[in-house]
C-alpha cells in the first residue's frame, strides 16, 4: 500500500501538466452539469428563499374595498388568514415615463405574513410620514434609489410627492416589469392622500393553506370565488394570485440558457473520458518498461491495475471537488440576478443531483482508465524490447512515389502513419471529438452573435418601441415617427395576455402591423399571414396548445372571441415562444384596437440608442421610447461558458495531440536511427517523423470539424425548438471561420510534432538506436 502510494505520488509529480489538464477537464464538466441542473430545476429561482424569509402567503386574494374578509377563514384548506391591508392603483411619473404602481398601506410594524424584507434603508417610520418603501426590482427598473423623491399620480389625478426611505424584497409577486404593477409600501395616511375614497381601494388578504401544492391552491382559489358568488362582473373578488404564479414568474424565463449549459455539460462529459482514456493509454504505453520493473520488484498485477485506477480516480475526485466549488461560487456571486439586483441568497445546490453529477464524473474517470489499467496489469515483468510495428513491403503507390522522386520523408512518413490500426484510430478519435465540440461551441457563439448582428433573423426587426401611454395622441406620435429620418418603417401594435383554455396559463396574443402590411417576423415554416383570419405562432405556443401549423384556434382576446388560422411558425425569442401574431385589424371594431405601442424598424447601421435619443429630443421628451431587449443580452453568460468550454476543449485536444505524437514517435524513433545510418539527414529524419504523426492527427482534425459542422446546427435548432424559440435559430460558421479553425488546429498539430520530433531526432545515436532500441529517449 505504501509502495503504491509512493509510486502514485511520484508519477503525478512527474506528469504535472497532464494531471492538471485532467483535473481541469473534470472540474469544467462537473461545474457545467451542476449549473445546468440548477437552471433546469429552477433551483436558481430566488423565490423559495424569499418566501421563507418573508413568511409569504400561499394565496393572495384581492377584494374590492370594504368587503369583509371573514368568510375566507371558514374556507376548507385555509389554516391562517392574514390581516388585510389596503392597496390603491397609482402611476409613478418620471418625465414622460409612467409606470403602473400598486400602493400598499402598511403600518410601521411589519405584518406577520408577507413581511417585506428590507434590503436597504429602513421600513416605514411614523417620524417620516412621506417616506415610502419601494420594491427592489421596481426600483432597479425605474432607476429610483434610496432617498429619491418621487411623484405618484392617483387614479383621479391627485399628485402626491414622496420620498424613498427603503428598498425591500417580497415574495408576493414576480419581478417588475415581467409582473406589473410595481409595488410601493406607504403609511395609511399617505395612501389616503393618493386615494381618499375607501371603496376605490382594494383589500389584500393573504392566506396560508394546509395543502400548498398546485392542486391545493387551485381548489382554494375556486372556493374563494364561490364564497363570493362566483367570478362575475359583480363579484367583489378582483383577482387571486397563487404562490405558483409568483414562483414561475421569478424563475429565469430563459429555458434556452439552461438547455445550452446542459448541452455543454453533456458534451464535456463525452469528451472527458475520451481525453482521460487517451492520456492514460499513452502513459501505459510509454511506461511499459517502468511497469515491467514494478512487477519485477514485487508489485502484483492486481496491485498495478488498482494503482493506476486509484491514480485517475484521485484526479477525478480532485476535479469534482473543484467543479462543485466553482459552481457554488458562480451561483453565490449573482450569476443569475433578476433585473433588480435583489440581494437574495439563492437556494442551496440540490444535494441529490449534485451528488449524482459528482459520482458520474468520478465513475467516468475510473471507467476511462479501466482498459489502459488492465493492459498495464498484463505487461510482462520481463522488460522486453518494444515490439516493432507490423511491417510489410512498400505498397505499389509508395514505390511509385519514390520512383517519381517525391521527397523520401513524405513517402516514408505517409507509409508509417497508419501501420498500427488501433492506435491510429484512437488518435483520430482523440483529436476529432474535442474538435467537433469546439466547432459546436463556436457555432453557438456565432448563433448568439447573429442575434445581435442580425436581429431580424430572430424576429427582432424592430429595434425601438414607442409606447402609446404618453401625453401625445396617436396622430401626433405617428407624425413624429414618420418625420424621423432614421426610422425605415413603423408598425402599430397591441399585446394581450390571453388565458389558455382551462385557465392553466397564459400566452401572448400580439397584433402588429396590419394583415396586409405585417411586421417583418421571421417565418421559418409555412408562410406569413395575409388576411384577417390568419396568424403565425411561435414554437412555444404550438407546444402549449398542442396544435400544428395549419390548425384553427379560437381564443378570447381582450374579451373578444377571435377565430384564427395558423399558417406559419415564427422564431419567437420572447416569452419562451408562447406568442401568436396577427394583424391589428384582425381584432374587430368591437374592441377599440387602438395601438398600445409602435415597433420601429431603423435603417441599417443606425444605433438604436442614438435613434432613441434623437426621437426623444424631437418630441420634447414626451414620447415613451424603449430599446427592444435582445435575447443575446440574457444569453451573455453563455458566451462566458463558451469561452471556458473552448479553453477546456483546446486543452483536451492538445493533451491528446501530445500523447498521440509521443506514442507515434516512440514507435518510429528507433527507425530514425536506422534511417540516419542509411544516409537521411537529420532534417529529413525529422520530416519523416513529423509527417507520420501529422497525417493521423490531421485526419482527426478534419473528421472532427466536419462532424461538428454537421451536428452543430441540428443540435442548436433542437435546443431552440425545445425551449419554444423555434427550430431555425442556428447560424452556421462562415467558410472563413471554418478555414481559420482548420488552419489553427493543423498548425497546432504540426507544432507539437515538430517540437517532439526535434528532440527525438537529434538525441538519437544511430548505432545505439539500432542495437538497443530499449534505450530510446527516456521520457
Amino acid at each position, binding site marked *: 500500500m505504501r509502495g503504491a502510494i509512493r509510486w502514485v505520488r511520484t508519477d503525478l509529480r*512527474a506528469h504535472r501538466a497532464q494531471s492538471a489538464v485532467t483535473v481541469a477537464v473534470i472540474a469544467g464538466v462537473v461545474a457545467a452539469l451542476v449549473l445546468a441542473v440548477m437552471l433546469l430545476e429552477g433551483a436558481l429561482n430566488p423565490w423559495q428563499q424569499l418566501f421563507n424569509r418573508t413568511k409569504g402567503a400561499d394565496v393572495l386574494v384581492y377584494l374590492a374595498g370594504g368587503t369583509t374578509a371573514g368568510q375566507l377563514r371558514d374556507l376548507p384548506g385555509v389554516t391562517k388568514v392574514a390581516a388585510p391591508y389596503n392597496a390603491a392603483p397609482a402611476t409613478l411619473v418620471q418625465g414622460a415615463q409612467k409606470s403602473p404602481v400598486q400602493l400598499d398601506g402598511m403600518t410601521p410594524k411589519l405584518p406577520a405574513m408577507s413581511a417585506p424584507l428590507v434590503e436597504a434603508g429602513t421600513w416605514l417610520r411614523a417620524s417620516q410620514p412621506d417616506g415610502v418603501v419601494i420594491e427592489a426590482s421596481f426600483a432597479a427598473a425605474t432607476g429610483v434609489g434610496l432617498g429619491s423623491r418621487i411623484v405618484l399620480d392617483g387614479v383621479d389625478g391627485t399628485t402626491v410627492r414622496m420620498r424613498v426611505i427603503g428598498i425591500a424584497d417580497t415574495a408576493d409577486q414576480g419581478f417588475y416589469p415581467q409582473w406589473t404593477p410595481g409595488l410601493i409600501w406607504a403609511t395609511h395616511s399617505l395612501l389616503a392622500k393618493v386615494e381618499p375614497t375607501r371603496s376605490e381601494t382594494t383589500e389584500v388578504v393573504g392566506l396560508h393553506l394546509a395543502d400548498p401544492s398546485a392542486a391545493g391552491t387551485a381548489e382554494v382559489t375556486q372556493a374563494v370565488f364561490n364564497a363570493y358568488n362566483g367570478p362575475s362582473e359583480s363579484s367583489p373578488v378582483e383577482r387571486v394570485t397563487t404562490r405558483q404564479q409568483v414562483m414561475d414568474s421569478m424563475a429565469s424565463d430563459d429555458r434556452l440558457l439552461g438547455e445550452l449549459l446542459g448541452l455543454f455539460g453533456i458534451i464535456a462529459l463525452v469528451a472527458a473520458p475520451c481525453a482521460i482514456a487517451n492520456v492514460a493509454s499513452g502513459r501505459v504505453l510509454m511506461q511499459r518498461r517502468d511497469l515491467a520493473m514494478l512487477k519485477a520488484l514485487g508489485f502484483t498485477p492486481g496491485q498495478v491495475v488498482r494503482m493506476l485506477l486509484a491514480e485517475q480516480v484521485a484526479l477525478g475526485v480532485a476535479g469534482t471537488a473543484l467543479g462543485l466549488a466553482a459552481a457554488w461560487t458562480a451561483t453565490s456571486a449573482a450569476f443569475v440576478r433578476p433585473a433588480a439586483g435583489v440581494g437574495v441568497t439563492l437556494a442551496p445546490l440540490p444535494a441529490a443531483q449534485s451528488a449524482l453529477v459528482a459520482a458520474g464524473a468520478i465513475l467516468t474517470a475510473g471507467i476511462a482508465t479501466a482498459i489502459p489499467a488492465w493492459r498495464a496489469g498484463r505487461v510482462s515483468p520481463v522488460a522486453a524490447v518494444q515490439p516493432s510495428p507490423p511491417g510489410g513491403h512498400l505498397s505499389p503507390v509508395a514505390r511509385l512515389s519514390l520512383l517519381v522522386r517525391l521527397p523520401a520523408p513524405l513517402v516514408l512518413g505517409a507509409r508509417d502513419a497508419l501501420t498500427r490500426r488501433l492506435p491510429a484510430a484512437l488518435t483520430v478519435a482523440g483529436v476529432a471529438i474535442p474538435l467537433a465540440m469546439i466547432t459546436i461551441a463556436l457555432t453557438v457563439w456565432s448563433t448568439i452573435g447573429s442575434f445581435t448582428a442580425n436581429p431580424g433573423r430572430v424576429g427582432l426587426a424592430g429595434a425601438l418601441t414607442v409606447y402609446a401611454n404618453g401625453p401625445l395622441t396617436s396622430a401626433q406620435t405617428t407624425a413624429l415617427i414618420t418625420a424621423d429620418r432614421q426610422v425605415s418603417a413603423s408598425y402599430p401594435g397591441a399585446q394581450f395576455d390571453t388565458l389558455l383554455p382551462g385557465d392553466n396559463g397564459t400566452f401572448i396574443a400580439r397584433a402588429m402591423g396590419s394583415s396586409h402590411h405585417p411586421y417583418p417576423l421571421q417565418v421559418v415554416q409555412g408562410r406569413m399571414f395575409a388576411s384577417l383570419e390568419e396568424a403565425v405562432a411561435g414554437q412555444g405556443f404550438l407546444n402549449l396548445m398542442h396544435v400544428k401549423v395549419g390548425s384553427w384556434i379560437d381564443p378570447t382576446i381582450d374579451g373578444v372571441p377571435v377565430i384564427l388560422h395558423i399558417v406559419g411558425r415564427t422564431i419567437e425569442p420572447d416569452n419562451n415562444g408562447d406568442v401568436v401574431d396577427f394583424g391589428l385589424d384582425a381584432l374587430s371594431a368591437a374592441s377599440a384596437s387602438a395601438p398600445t405601442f409602435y415597433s420601429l424598424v431603423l435603417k441599417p447601421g443606425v444605433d438604436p440608442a442614438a435613434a432613441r435619443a434623437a426621437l426623444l429630443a424631437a418630441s420634447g421628451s414626451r414620447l415613451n421610447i424603449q430599446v427592444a431587449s435582445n435575447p443575446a443580452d440574457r444569453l451573455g453568460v453563455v458566451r462566458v461558458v463558451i469561452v471556458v468550454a473552448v479553453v477546456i476543449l483546446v486543452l483536451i485536444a492538445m493533451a491528446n495531440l501530445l500523447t498521440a505524437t509521443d506514442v507515434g514517435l516512440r514507435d518510429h524513433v528507433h527507425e530514425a536511427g536506422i534511417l540516419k545510418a542509411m544516409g537521411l539527414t537529420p532534417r529529413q529524419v525529422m520530416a519523416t517523423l513529423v509527417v507520420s504523426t501529422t497525417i493521423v492527427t490531421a485526419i482527426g482534425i478534419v473528421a472532427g470539424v466536419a462532424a461538428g459542422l454537421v451536428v452543430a446546427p441540428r443540435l442548436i435548432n433542437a435546443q431552440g425548438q425545445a425551449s419554444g424559440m423555434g427550430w431555425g435559430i442556428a447560424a452556421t460558421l462562415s467558410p472563413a471561420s471554418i478555414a481559420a479553425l482548420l488552419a489553427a488546429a493543423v498548425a497546432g498539430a504540426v507544432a507539437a510534432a515538430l517540437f517532439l520530433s526535434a528532440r527525438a531526432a537529434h538525441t538519437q545515436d544511430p548505432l545505439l538506436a539500432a542495437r538497443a532500441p530499449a534505450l530510446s529517449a527516456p521520457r
Partner: protein
Amino acid sequence: MRQNPEPCPARETPALLRARGLAKAYKSGGGSVEAVRGVDLEVSVGEFVAIMGPSGSGKSTLLHVLGGLEPATRGEIWLRGKRVDGLSPSAWAVLRRKHVGFVFQFFNLLSTMTVADNVELPALLAGATPKQARKRREELLEELGIAAKAGAAPSRLSGGEQQRVALARALANEPSLLLADEPTGNLDSANTRDVLRLLRRTHAGGQTILMVTHDAKVACLADRVINLFDGMIADDAKVVPAPREKATVRNFLELRG
C-alpha cells in the same frame, strides 16, 4: 585459474535454490523454441555462482525463470525449501519482494522517481514504514558511495552510478537471493571494477548471488561457474584461485617434469 576436479566438500550446506529438469520454450514463427532445456541446478546459501555461455545459450532466460519473471514450461524450482515453480504471477510478486533482488544490464531504474525513491520503494512495498525505508536507503547509498546523489533523477547519473543505485535497490529488503543479469555489460572498465568490488563486498557479507555474465574476468569473482550451451548445462565447477607461489626453481623443474 585452475579447476578443481574434486567433488563438493562433504559438509552439507543447505540449498537455497534448487532446480530440476527446468525448461522454457517460446513460440516463434511456426513452432516453439526451447531456450532452456532440462537444467538441474543447486545454489547453497552464501554461494556466488556465475553462469556463462555464448549468446543465445539461454542464460538470461534461465535467470528470468529462476526469479519468476517468466513461468517455466517444465520442471521444478525450490526456493528456501518450498516449491515455487507453479506459483501465480501475484504469488511470485509477493515472494520477490522479500526474497529475490534483481540487477539488470540496462539498470532499469524507474524514470519518474528520484534515486532515493527508487531505493525506498522495495522497502515500502514489503511493508516498512517510510521512516524505516528512509533509514535503510541512507545506509545503502552510503555503503555504495552515492549518498550525494539521493535527490537526483536517474537519467542524470552515469552508467556506473545508475548500476550502483540498482544494486542498492536490489539489496533494500536483504533478499535471500540476488539475481544479476550482465550487471557490467553496459559499463566501461572503471565502472566495471567499481561494481565488481561492490558485488564482492556484498558476497563477503553473506549474500547469495547468481550472476549471468559473458566476461571471464567478471566470472572470476564467483565461487562457482556454470557453463550453459544451447540451453543445457555443459559444465559446473568450483572456482579455486591459483595459489600464489614464488617462482622458484623447484616449480620450474616440476613443470618440466
